[in-house]
């Protein structure tokens, strides 16, 4: 990549009242990346996103957005960022149109046409008062508010938790449009692993307040696999498979979840164990579950 990364963090950490919430996290987000952030509740996903946006200062390390210290992001740089919070923060008394108007007035380049078109497609009634909207409608409105100024970096915290499958698919398509641009990045945390599976090219897995795994999504899928071992005679009790996260023996068969799998190790292992080994690739959800067992 020739361009410098949009987001760069080094040894980032955050503690509240002496209790660590996030520790030693480092990453970069390049233009064009779609990053999926996975983690159990409480693993630090929201804190991470808030640190990136500069809502709260880091207690260790640093994080930079567009080259600026996140906590002191200048106004002009803020115009290139979009954020969708986990719980909507709309003003209840206003109509959707007014709400959009108020937010739009802060940005020098607001795309009215885009917002108008999307609100029609997503069936968000602009004349409806926010307090009369359902939770899904409110979430859709929050997303629209983050898209209107065509930000270079879009950060979303559980953006689709309340959306029905149709709305989710519409949202996915919009993220794809953003990503197809090539110069814009998206970072989103979601429990709906199937969405992350479709969209992300980079995965961050937060576990126990640390960055447990990060990198290319395809290499994650190639790395964590399930091995099915089939031998002709019962397998020894002390059966050991390198890098196994989990191992289940059952007479002449065994199943193991292996991390750090390499295709060239396949034959060697089969010979070593004297058994047939079949490699099965896992879905992202299964990988996530296995990493957390």
């Amino acid at each position, binding site marked *: 990549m020739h361009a410098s990364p949009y987001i760069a963090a080094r040894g980032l950490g955050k503690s*509240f*009242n002496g209790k660590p919430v996030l520790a030693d996290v480092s990453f970069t987000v390049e233009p064009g990346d779609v990053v999926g952030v996975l983690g159990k509740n409480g693993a630090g996903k929201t804190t991470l996103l*808030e640190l990136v*946006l*500069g*809502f*709260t200062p880091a207690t260790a390390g640093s994080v930079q957005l567009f080259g600026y210290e996140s*906590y002191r992001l200048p*106004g*002009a740089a*803020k*115009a290139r*960022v*979009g*954020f969708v*919070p986990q*719980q*909507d*923060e709309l*003003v*209840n*008394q*206003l109509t959707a149109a*007014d709400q959009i*108007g*108020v*937010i739009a*007035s*802060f*940005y020098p380049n607001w795309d009215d046409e885009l917002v108008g078109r999307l609100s029609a497609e997503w069936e968000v009634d602009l004349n409806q*008062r926010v*307090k009369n909207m359902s939770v899904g409608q*409110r979430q859709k409105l929050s997303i629209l508010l983050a898209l209107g100024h065509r930000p270079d970096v879009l950060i979303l915290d559980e953006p689709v938790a309340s959306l029905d499958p149709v709305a989710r698919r519409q949202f996915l398509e919009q993220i794809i449009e953003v990503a197809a641009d090539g110069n814009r990045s998206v970072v989103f945390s979601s429990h709906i692993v199937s969405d992350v599976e479709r969209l992300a090219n980079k995965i961050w897995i937060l576990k126990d307040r640390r960055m447990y795994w990060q990198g290319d999504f395809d290499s994650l899928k190639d790395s964590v696999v399930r091995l099915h071992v089939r031998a002709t005679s019962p397998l020894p009790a002390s059966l050991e498979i390198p890098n196994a996260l989990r191992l289940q023996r059952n007479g002449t068969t065994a199943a193991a979840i292996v991390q750090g799998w390499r295709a060239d190790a396949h034959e060697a292992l089969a010979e070593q164990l004297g058994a047939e080994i079949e490699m099965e690739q896992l879905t992202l959800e299964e990988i996530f579950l296995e990493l957390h067992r």
Partner: protein
Amino acid sequence: MKATARLIYTYFTGTALLRFITLAGLVAGIGGAALNLYLPPLTGGSGNPTRFSLAQEAVIFLLPVAGLLCFVFGASLLPAMFARLASSHYLYVLPHGRTKLLASAFATVALASLFAAGVVTLYYYKTPLVLDLIFQRAFAVSFATTSFLYVVLWLTGKGGPIGLLLGTFVMVATLVLPLKFIATPSTSLAIPWTACVLLWTTFAAGFLLAPRLKASLGRLRQTLAQLTGSTYRGGGEVDFLIGTARPWTLAAGQIVPIAIATYIMSLASWAPLAWAFFLTIISVTTGAVASLAATRGRALWLRARWTRAELFRHVENAFWRYNCYTLGVLLLLLVGIGDWLALPTRVLAFGMGLLALGSTLSTYIGLIVTARIGWRDAVLAVIVILALMRTAMHVSSPTTPTATIVAYEVGLAALALLLRELARRRWSRLDWMLCRPDTSVRASA
């Protein structure tokens, strides 16, 4: 610039009702001013003023004031929107969000103050006083009071629509108070100006520096919470869920407006009437929390084995416990400051009864709100407050016979019983689909 303007515009026109009120205010204000300045005195058919023409003249005279009030209320979205945006993530992400939001609040208060100053100057137009000075004085005082008013509106607005209604009455009271202050040219302008400057610089500094102060603010909030005992103690479930767990915050919060009002009154020598008036209005703000009881009661009803009728009894008891604190503080202030202002004993005695009645009535009015607030409920609330104010006038006036005052207070007590019955009936038929909680209530709960 664009954002600030848009925010100000939204404060005044965000809802259909507000748009109407703002417009009505502008029309009444400007139209009324024009009429007052240029219309010759009205006369009846015979060339002499009649009762009707005098009544008309009174209306025309008061039109600019009505316009002013409408205009000020027209921006009542300011506190709610400001608070909502201020506590949101948006403020960190929107370019220059904090500055623009602050500027919009400042500008709105300035606009309202200009209008107020204009109206006041209008009334002094035909007098020999120097208009320039009057305008300045009026502007300075209005700026201080308008800022305060919006804060009051915000605090009471958090209590739902009834709270808002009650808050507007407090606003009216405090709008009226300083007029005397303006009219006495001898009192120095330094006080309101210093008050303004202090208030706004502290507020602005706090607001703009909030991100940096977040850590220490969080710690402060935690220690306060621990001190005021909002941590759970077994047995306090009803209080916790209904929202009556922290009576001390409201009780303490009453002290500030009372202190300010007392100071202004001691300068302007209005004591008895204004005092009674003001305290009555303040006693009524306890009803704001009661108006949320119905929506919050659902959580309680789901968990306890009570019928709706039993739920009402428990909630009612919770509010009596709650009101004891606020009432206690008010009574202390009444007696203490009343003594300092050398108010007659009769005023103090009946004043206590009045305050107790005020709290009771407002609580039951709050409990009556079991669905979206209809015009019937609003009218009822207005009637009750007017009745309270009328009684306050009698209590503070030395000429009214004691019997009349007693009659009034007994009447109010009877009204309270009536409201209680109404609330009880409504709670026995509570339909929680009709009083769906507002999400902002959920967020703050």
